[in-house]
């Protein structure tokens, strides 16, 4: 017996090699490892069954030539952009969204900005900005994200889609003008303005996307993120505090873009 602590992986290896693990080390291991003990019940039936089902390694034959050819094709601007580290891509994509909003705040800010509650303004802006950051991070991790992270993609996409509506409920709280609280206005103009200005984000996302076959839920998330960016810049620009205007003209942008992208999606499509 050695001083080495036996690992579960060694138990498995022994089964796979065609032996029922035995010896003092194994007995020691089984004393504190309940899951390995299960493998040994009934004459080690489960351990042997699992071991039998292990397939032999498969020869890749001439697959490397195909892989190498694909890798050699990775040239040009898009190849360079999507090979950037995820953190950098996320900062750029999220940064562009925030920059659009900052530009509006500096050059085309809402005309009631001085009368609007600063606390509510920054809370709404922070909610939308945080949702953008979260969405961008989820979107760009792609295939390297742990399985549990990916499994929550649908609920995350749904959350990102409804965030603008939740933020819209807060907007009237900061308005002190009866006029802007009661004017429905022209939500279609806001919708078009926000949607058009958030389109560059979708273009940038396409440049950054590493997957050739983009999952539908990723496209929905991309639409939701672009919609959030559109909502943030509209919030800095449009003085309306009418709930109907906000829900119809602002909060629907992400939903519309997601539907548009989902409509363009094909199960076998490759993005590049």
């Amino acid at each position: 017996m050695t001083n080495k602590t036996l690992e579960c992986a060694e138990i498995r290896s022994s089964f796979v090699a065609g032996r029922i693990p035995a010896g003092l080390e194994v007995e020691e291991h089984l004393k504190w490892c309940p899951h390995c003990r299960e493998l040994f019940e009934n004459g080690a039936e489960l351990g042997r069954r699992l071991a039998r089902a292990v397939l032999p390694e498969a020869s890749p034959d001439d697959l490397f030539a195909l892989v190498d050819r694909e890798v050699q094709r990775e040239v040009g601007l898009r190849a360079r952009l999507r090979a950037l580290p995820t953190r950098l891509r996320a900062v750029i994509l999220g940064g562009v969204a925030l920059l659009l909003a900052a530009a509006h705040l500096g050059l085309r800010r809402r005309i009631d900005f001085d009368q609007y509650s600063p606390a509510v303004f920054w809370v709404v802006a922070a909610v939308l900005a945080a949702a953008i950051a979260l969405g961008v991070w989820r979107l760009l991790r792609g295939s390297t994200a742990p399985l549990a992270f990916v499994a929550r993609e649908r609920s995350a996409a749904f959350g990102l889609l409804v965030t603008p509506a939740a933020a819209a409920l807060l907007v009237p709280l900061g308005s002190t003008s009866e006029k802007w609280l009661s004017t429905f206005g022209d939500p279609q103009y806001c919708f078009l303005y926000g949607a058009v200005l958030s389109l560059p984000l979708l273009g940038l996302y396409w440049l950054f996307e590493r997957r050739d076959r983009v999952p539908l839920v990723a496209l929905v998330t991309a639409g939701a993120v672009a919609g959030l960016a559109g909502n943030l810049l509209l919030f800095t620009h449009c003085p309306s505090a009418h709930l109907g205007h906000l829900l119809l003209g602002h909060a629907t942008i992400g939903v519309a873009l997601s539907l548009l992208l989902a409509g363009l999606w094909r199960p076998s499509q490759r993005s590049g």
Partner: protein
Amino acid sequence: MPPLSDPRSDEELMAAYVAGNGAAFRIIFERYAPLLLRAMLRELYMREEANDLVQQTFLQLHRARADFDPGQKLKPWVFTIAMNLKREYFRRKKRRPERSLEAETAEPAVPALGAAQVEARRTLARALAGLPDDQREVIELHWFDGLEFPEVAQVVGASTSAVKVRAHRGYVRLRQALGDAAPLPPLEGAPPGNREGAGGI
């Protein structure tokens, strides 16, 4: 030098590749392609589709190379990419992986399987199909892909202890599900081609 006997670790090879050493990519491919192909064939049963997913895995590895943390192990990182691609494949095809295992009646696209092993795989596949996804995933990654529990934890995004609990619960349910199955004959030896099994306890 033959790729498998290259003295550098997987992580050193990946670091060399990130630094621009193209030859390191070939060695990584030689080491991982057989493992990934086996992982894909286990549920796909179509060589062409499995090849395509392995090809996609290496392409993603190439594109995401700047994200690789040299302080982490390469194996779980590669398997995370591969498992995500496989999961997305089944989502696109709108079917669950277990179905292909259960429905499989013809010779699978894997080499040199005896009748006993095919039958054992079928029985186990049916039992595995009855497990919750999180338990099945852990057992498959550990047993069939040869990942250690800390590596499995990295792939699924949970703690090692949580992964072990899932394995334990999965084993208990598997034993219950296999209770009626005919007992196995005595061990006949290791399946052919399993290098990893050599040198056990």
